[in-house]
């Protein structure tokens, strides 16, 4: 087998590598993606007091400390057998919505969106926020920076600190919301709703009104039929903070709905010899390899899968866009609910609908009279010894599972992070894109690198859990080699 390597050596926040193996005819035989292995997190945690976990785990990853903080706080609720007060749950969710707004905004404008706004064939140096500002105007850039700033401010007010939140505690939240803070957050939430609508309109103008982009979204290269996972409330509406985990099959029929604590009965992890990465799959279906279909246990946990797994959205404007999404992408109705959309590039659109939902939900919570209640904590009286907590992280369902001794000292820690859910699906998407663009030892299309990256980027994979260490080398190399290891073609992106 021949091997093509795409290896951006180091980047500010982590790095990954894609290996593409060619067969004797020079066509793609297989693709693998790998990220640096981070060693010893479980050992790092075992022996520590469980109540330290919301702060420790928020440091696992600089991109989504808020998600880890929240899943960890919820796991501690269970480990200490305590139910947070109603006000505490609302403050946690309010905090979490501010995080979702800023995270989804950043992904769209700085990472995913540039492929469309600036264009998939634009020079790589233009496909970033800078390119977006040049193309869409200074006002767009100002709005993005303003959106980030005001929501970072909310996260700081509610979370206690700007970067790594500290307010989550078993049984609630350690900081109550004053009347003045509530009013300020309500104003910010309203600005967020306007900004989300503005962003959806921009998406409409630039992407949906462009037949070439719609063709790209609906092309076979970026199409996979897998199971979809997402958290839903009692009415099967999407919820980021709490609910049951629901999985629908590729046709849109409910496959299972379960409590987070039961995750191990439903999800198993496949280990492959070529990587330390684990590939979660549906236990009852089984692992059938990196393949699509009802018979394959592969599932995704992404903004797209969350919309697919929900019957509807809980806020009015987001619900309108939800309906339009399924109408536009041609999904039929099955058993009273929409059929899933499997065009993976539509994940970018789904993410913006989630942005609107998060903004509207933030507004609802900021207007809730109970949000300023001082009754923000139930003091734990017991130690149950085991707790599982989950939330929807921007990149997928995030689960924290802790076991402790009778003094609440940790004896076991297991995390299933958002991106991990999608490892198999990401591998499949990269493979399909590579198959399309490499034939007979040759890269058959200009823009190959970006087409493969687009297959990867739509998942918003969080490899940042790894490291952000400063870059020391050029970011991207593709080598296509013959069986003697001689380079047939070398693509290099260097700046």
């Amino acid at each position, binding site marked *: 087998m021949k091997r093509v390597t795409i290896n951006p050596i180091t980047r500010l926040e982590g790095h990954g590598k894609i290996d593409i193996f060619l067969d004797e005819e020079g066509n793609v035989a297989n693709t693998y993606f790998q990220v640096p292995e981070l060693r010893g997190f479980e050992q*790092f945690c075992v022996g520590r007091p469980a109540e330290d976990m919301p702060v420790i785990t928020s440091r696992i990853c600089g991109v989504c400390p808020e998600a880890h903080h929240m899943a960890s706080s919820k796991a501690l609720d269970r480990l200490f057998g305590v139910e947070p007060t109603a006000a505490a749950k609302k403050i946690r969710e309010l905090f979490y919505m501010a995080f979702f707004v800023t995270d989804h905004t950043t992904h769209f404008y700085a990472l995913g969106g540039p492929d469309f706004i600036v264009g998939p064939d634009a020079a790589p140096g233009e496909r970033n926020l800078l390119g977006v500002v040049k193309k869409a105007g200074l006002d767009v850039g100002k709005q993005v920076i303003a959106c980030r700033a005001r929501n970072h401010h909310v996260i700081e007010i509610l979370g206690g600190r700007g970067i790594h939140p500290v307010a989550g505690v078993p049984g609630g939240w350690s900081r109550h919301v004053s009347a003045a803070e509530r009013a300020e957050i309500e104003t910010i939430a309203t600005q967020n709703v306007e900004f989300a609508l503005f962003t959806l309109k921009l998406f409409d103008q630039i992407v949906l009104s462009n037949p070439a982009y719609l063709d790209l979204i609906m092309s076979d290269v970026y199409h996979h039929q897998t199971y979809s996972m997402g958290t839903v409330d009692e009415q099967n509406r999407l919820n980021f903070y709490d609910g049951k985990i629901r999985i629908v099959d590729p046709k849109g029929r409910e496959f299972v709905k379960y409590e987070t604590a039961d995750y191990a009965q439903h999800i198993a992890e496949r280990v492959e010899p070529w990587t330390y990465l684990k590939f979660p799959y549906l236990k009852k279906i089984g692992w059938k390899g990196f393949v699509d279909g009802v018979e394959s246990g592969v599932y995704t946990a992404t903004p797209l899968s969350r919309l697919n797994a929900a019957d509807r959205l809980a806020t009015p404007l987001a619900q309108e866009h939800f309906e339009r999404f399924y109408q536009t992408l041609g999904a039929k109705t099955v058993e009273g609910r929409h059929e899933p959309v499997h065009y993976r590039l539509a994940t970018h659109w789904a993410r913006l609908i989630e942005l609107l939902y998060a903004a509207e939900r933030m507004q609802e919570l900021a207007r809730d009279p109970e949000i300023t209640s001082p009754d923000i904590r139930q003091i734990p009286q017991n130690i149950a010894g085991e707790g599982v907590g989950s939330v929807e992280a921007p990149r997928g369902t995030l689960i924290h599972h802790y076991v402790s001794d009778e003094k609440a000292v940790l004896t076991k820690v297991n995390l299933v992070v958002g991106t991990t859910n999608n490892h198999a699906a990401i591998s499949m998407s990269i493979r399909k894109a590579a198959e399309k663009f490499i034939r007979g030892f040759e890269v058959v299309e200009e823009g190959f690198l970006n087409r493969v990256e687009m297959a990867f980027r739509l998942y918003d994979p969080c490899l940042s859990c790894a490291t*952000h260490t400063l870059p020391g080398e050029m970011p991207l190399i593709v080598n296509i080699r013959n069986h003697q290891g001689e380079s047939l073609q070398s693509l290099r992106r260097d700046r």
Partner: protein
Amino acid sequence: MSTIIVGIGNRVLSDDSVGIKVADTLATALRSRSDVVTSELWGGGLRLMETLNGYERAIIIDAIITKDGKPGSVYILKPSDLRQSRNTYSTHDGGFQEALEVGAMLGLNLPPQITIWAVEADDVETYSENLTREVERAVPIVVAGVMRQIGLEEQLTLSVGEQQ
């Protein structure tokens, strides 16, 4: 001159924490200085640019991995020395150089003077609160260098004296 010192990294990921550890020491040594702010950040792109907004001078301390680099080596860099990838898939909010350009274009008040102190890391993949040996040795060198850079040798002597 209003100055912000930012230590970048992950506090629990071995050598990745070197920037934060230097910033921690500087924060203690400079606590009486109202014109110097020290801060901690996890990563480089937009968020770093936003953090620097409004200061006249920025000093950034971070881990670095260079080809054939020797762990513990200290480099003093300008933002333009960082050869940025602008289109890899493994990042979350873009590169620093690109973020600085965005900030400048949007009229943000970014420091005209930005210095990056980078320490060659050995291990950035193991969860640990400790630095590896060579990187640990670089900490006082960078602390002293930053103090000298901002003209505060006097405080340096005092703070070293206090520690002893």
